[in-house]
């Protein structure tokens, strides 16, 4: 196996986090990240990215959209007739 550098570590990062790589590659990655401040910082920001985007796009249903949905389903089905 070729030695792990930052670029190969980045390529394998998703598989690494999902636990779908072989134990020896996993160990080699752990060793590289433990000794590489750049990769440690990169992994931290990579892991935070989904959460930041999730929070930033967590919209709630506006009341007018909900009312339109009710009216639409009333017109196309027998639901919401009594509400």
């Amino acid at each position: 196996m070729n030695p792990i550098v930052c670029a190969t570590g980045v390529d394998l990062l998703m598989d690494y986090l999902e636990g779908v790589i072989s134990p020896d590659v996993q160990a080699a990655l752990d060793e590289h990240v433990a000794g590489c401040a750049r990769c440690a910082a990169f992994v931290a920001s990579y892991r935070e990215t989904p959460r930041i985007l999730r929070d930033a796009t967590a919209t709630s249903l506006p009341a007018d959209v909900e009312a339109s949905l009710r009216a639409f389903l009333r017109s196309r089905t027998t639901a919401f007739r009594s509400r």
Partner: protein
Amino acid sequence: MVVPTAEPSDKALAAQAAAGDDSAFETIVERYQGRVFRLACRLTSDTDAPDVLQETFLQVHRHLASFRGDSQFSTWLYRIATNAALMHRRARQRRPGSSLEDFLPRFDSCGTHVATPAELQVASRADELLDRQFLAERAREALAQLPDLYRDAFVLRDLEEMSTADVARTLGVESATVRQRVHRARLMLRGYLSDLVGVKP
């Protein structure tokens, strides 16, 4: 053990609704409308999401009888919502191309990160460093700029927090393909967040 106060399960409601019980269908709508709307916003746009929401529940109503109960009801409903969003998006001409490639990490000839640890770290604090409303608007733009295949996988896996296997089934691709697409999306979006706070990725 029977818990009389428990909410009816999705499967029980689906069976009642399939048998023509309107109030069971209405409960399903109430239970899932918020999640479907949020998914639709993430896969299309705030403008298109109301149509996707309506189409989704119309399809759910029509196809309730075909829900077999061998998968989670939520997974089944999400698949319908995802397909409705993708159909809607396909009907609209998207502008081609994406500039998010610019935000991929850069390496020197030895394969070492070009950026410093501090520069590489900063994306993880984007939500502390940026105004909330500003970040929300930029996040919507960033999702819209992702290549569609990456966007779909990222939204379902990372924003809706479905399992990789469920995303694979929903999109009709292998799990390895989902991982590859989600990974590319994460790399682009990580660099995009970094750029937003003024640091080259």
